[in-house]
């Protein structure tokens, strides 16, 4: 049975995949459905949802279209989530492979650095980094990756430690391949699957961290973000709660979707392993 069919068998996975598909569709459709700047003023301020069908989800305190903001916010969330996951897995896999394959002093030094990063709460690190460098999308991605690369590094190292004793690695050594070539062409590709399994958790965490940073006013102010929308809605929480609730629901669904799909993927691949 193929991985995909196995994946589609678990109902959670399907639910997760559907949510993610909807999210990606939202992100891709945003510039087509809402070509105007989502931060532009579209109508009267604080219009409640479902009153005016040209503004189905209402407007915020300045009269901006909440639906347009939601769609464009999906772009930011997905972009940050994927970029942060890719960055942290790239850093983590490299560090882990080097540490595991080289061993000795290199291993010690790299893993103590990893330990050091792991002892500092990732969110605190991101907060400090963004407040020093200044908020922009790239900075936010780096800030999140800064706290998230340690997990992949540890998993990659553990995997590499077992792979480097395999016969094909020994044979590569015998034919005189450069150690770095062995590490990154022979070992790393085989060590990667379990590391990739971490990616769903990292994407979900990254989306949440980005939202939290925006909520604290440390997001990019020239972009719509869900966290920023929630923060703006907070001032009118008692009189217009929908402004915080709508992006909040979007955030919860997204993280849930990423998580469910990731779980489903891990389950499916584990089942394949059991069968083979």
């Amino acid at each position, binding site marked *: 049975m193929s991985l995909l069919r196995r994946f589609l068998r678990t109902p959670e996975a399907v639910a997760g995949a559907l949510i993610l598909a909807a999210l990606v569709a939202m992100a891709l459709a945003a510039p087509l459905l809402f070509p105007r*700047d989502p*931060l*532009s*003023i579209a109508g009267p*301020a604080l219009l409640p949802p479902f009153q005016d069908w040209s503004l189905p989800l209402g407007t915020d*305190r*300045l*009269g901006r279209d909440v639906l347009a903001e939601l769609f464009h916010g999906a772009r930011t969330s997905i972009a940050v989530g994927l970029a942060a996951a890719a960055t942290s897995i790239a850093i983590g896999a490299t560090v882990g492979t080097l540490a595991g394959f080289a061993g000795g002093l290199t291993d010690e030094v790299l893993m103590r650095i990893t330990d050091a990063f792991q002892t500092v709460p990732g969110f605190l690190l991101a907060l400090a980094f963004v*407040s020093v460098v*200044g*908020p922009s999308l790239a900075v936010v991605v780096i800030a999140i990756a800064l706290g998230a690369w340690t997990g992949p590094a540890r998993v990659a190292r553990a995997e590499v430690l077992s792979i480097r004793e395999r016969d094909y690695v020994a044979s590569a050594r015998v034919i005189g391949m450069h150690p770095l070539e062995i590490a990154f062409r022979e070992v790393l590709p085989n060590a990667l699957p379990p590391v990739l399994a971490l990616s769903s958790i990292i994407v979900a965490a990254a989306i949440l961290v980005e939202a939290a940073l925006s909520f604290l*006013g*440390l997001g990019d*102010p*020239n972009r719509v973000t869900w966290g920023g929308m929630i923060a703006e809605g*907070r*001032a*009118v*929480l*008692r*009189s*217009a709660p929908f402004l915080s609730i709508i992006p909040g629901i979007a955030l919860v669904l997204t993280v849930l979707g990423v998580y469910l799909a990731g779980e489903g993927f891990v389950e499916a691949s584990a089942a394949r392993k059991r069968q083979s």
Partner: protein
Amino acid sequence: MSDFRISRRGVLAGSAFLLASTALPGTLWAQTPTKGGRLIVASDSEPRNLNPAIVASNGVFFIASKVIEPLAEASFDSKDGLEPRLAVSWEGSEDGRSVTFKLRENVTWHDGKPFTSADVAFSALQVWKPLQNLGRVVFKDLEAVDTPDAHTAVFRFSKPTPFQLIRNALPALTSVVAKHIYEGSDIAENPANTALVGTGPFKLAEHKAGEYYRLERNDKYWGEGEPHLDEIVYRVLPDRAAAAGALEAEEIHLAAFSAVPLADLARISKVPGIEVVTKGYEGLTYQLVVEINHRRKELADLKVRQAIAHAIDKDFVVKTVFLGYAAPATGPVPQNDKQFYTKDVPAYAFDPAKANALLDEAGYKRDANGTRFKLKLLPAPYFNETKQFGDYLRQALAAIGIDAQIVNNDAAAHQKAVYTDHDFDLAVAPPVFRGDPAISTTILVQSGIPDGVPFSNQGGYKNAEIDALIEKASETIDAEARTGLYREFQKKVVEDLPLINVAEWSFITVARDTVKNVSNNPRWAVSNWADTYLET
């Protein structure tokens, strides 16, 4: 039972009294104040230096004004808008070189020592003039303070100084501190800057960092029968949403300085037992201003500045950002100022088409994306409203082809970026009008101010004509002539737009209806609250 019987005559007499009472001015008709009680107030900050003689700011006054008093306080209906406090009368000389204050007798400091003219002389020469943020400007030519007797202080100026300016400065700039406490010490570092000793109706009893300030009744206060309250407690509630909740839960009695967000006022005003008061801040008008960096070649062009002024819909700002709790501005002096304001200035109506035409005329054509040029916009982070106006301004500028990128900073970084590094093109600022343009308004457009002075002209603007007007007004003694010069000043500023005044706003007090005598002067939140009481 007979005690409860309602007689017809009694009802008639009662209603007649009610009718009469509504006809009387509020100050004359007052029920007997209840004695005692503890007033609990929301406070959003804990200033590092609590000495109002050094730091003349509202955050400090809010607490310290109950402990340390000025020479005179602002008033709604007294002569020149002033009511005596530590001074009972004041008079300026013809030549503008001296002002004579008669001081109140039988006043003692909280530590029991008598208050005399030596304290006033010391405060003026050693504190207000050299150390105070605003006093440095107003008292710059103060040469000496003569003390012919214990209750007379004569201020002598080296250059003619307008009496009108000194008068307008009395409420905010003349908090008197005790000579015997500060003399011979490093005044800026004296422990009494946090453990205040004053003459006011309340003594500072206790401060628990992060929790509260507790003020106790001064039994020896000079005001007859005052203060009414036994205690005032300032509960530190930095979260704005918390103040509204605490009021509704009756944990606090009063939240001043718009501690309850504007967006929440409509809802909370309907809660029984809670009153929303918009009065009591007339002497502390904030102005919403777009600061312009004239070093940018596009912004140095008057047509571009006019275009920006035409692109801003002031009514929308008042209605949406301030939810109606503000007024559109016409120029650098707010409309609620009775002495100086003139409406005889050019107006910039909201007109994006005209703004676009002006920019075309200035030679900044739209490119393929519809953008003429890019700007860096720094909204001041101090108020929700300044930040929201920043969001609005970005959109208003986009409509006329100017791409403004918002840069958010915290308060310290914002001040450094704008007032020291000049790393901005446009900034949103909330300067305060303090009753006289010479106190903190002319500094916004005057040239030659050193780098790093906050809330001053750091946009590199220089206009010899406006500088000359400011200079001339600063030495014009005659109040009428001086007022005329400031009217001219307003006109010139609005013509040349060194900055753009968008709106004027003040704060809102939300209080339980048991708190009486709220907002009965134009600086109520920062006045001494000697007559405030809690009805039981």
